[in-house]
């Protein structure tokens, strides 16, 4: 079975680009923590009352739509 890394390596070779795997792993580690930071940041800054109300309206519309469809 071909590993994920091997697949990526083949693809890069096909295109004509070379990955430095040591650096790739390091970048991925940083990227994961940065994405987690970004998610947490968005969560903390989001207007939750608006989202909740929108979601409720969406559910109500969806339920009405379904009733009409049947």
């Amino acid at each position, binding site marked *: 079975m071909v590993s994920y890394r091997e697949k*990526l390596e083949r*693809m*890069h070779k096909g*295109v*004509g*680009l*070379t*990955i*430095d*795997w040591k*650096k*790739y792993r*390091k*970048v*991925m580690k*940083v*990227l994961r*923590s*940065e994405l987690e*930071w*970004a998610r947490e*940041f968005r969560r903390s800054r989001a207007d939750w009352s608006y989202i909740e109300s929108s979601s409720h309206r969406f559910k109500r519309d969806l339920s009405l739509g379904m009733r009409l469809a049947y």
Partner: protein
Amino acid sequence: MILPIVIFVEIKREPARSFIWYLLATKRLLLAPRIDLVDSLALKLYEIINSDPNLPSIDPPEAYALAFAKYTGLPLLTDNASPKIATAFLEELHGTEVYDSLDVLALLYSRRKLRTKIRTFIEDTGIEFSRRRLREYGLL
């Protein structure tokens, strides 16, 4: 500063376009025509970056700008994460520099003024910098 024509056509807002025309008229900006050689590398970068689900995606003009930076040896200015990440591990991009707004602010201002300038920048643009990025410049 050099602006590839591929990026210029992406700029739709009139104030931004007028500002570019002003920079061109005052000879502070050059508009670069599309180059075959750059296009070829841009396509490779676009395919490779977007085919890896672990990486933030890149759009065609951004891929062109990254390839253009490699071709000219000039730093690329962008706040998109993808080009900066790609230069960190793709050997063909070794030595290509990508600056985001924080890098530019740090180049422009002394450490003493930097904190205030960053705060103003965040208020004006809504762009935030992570703790890790701020730590890189000794701001945390």
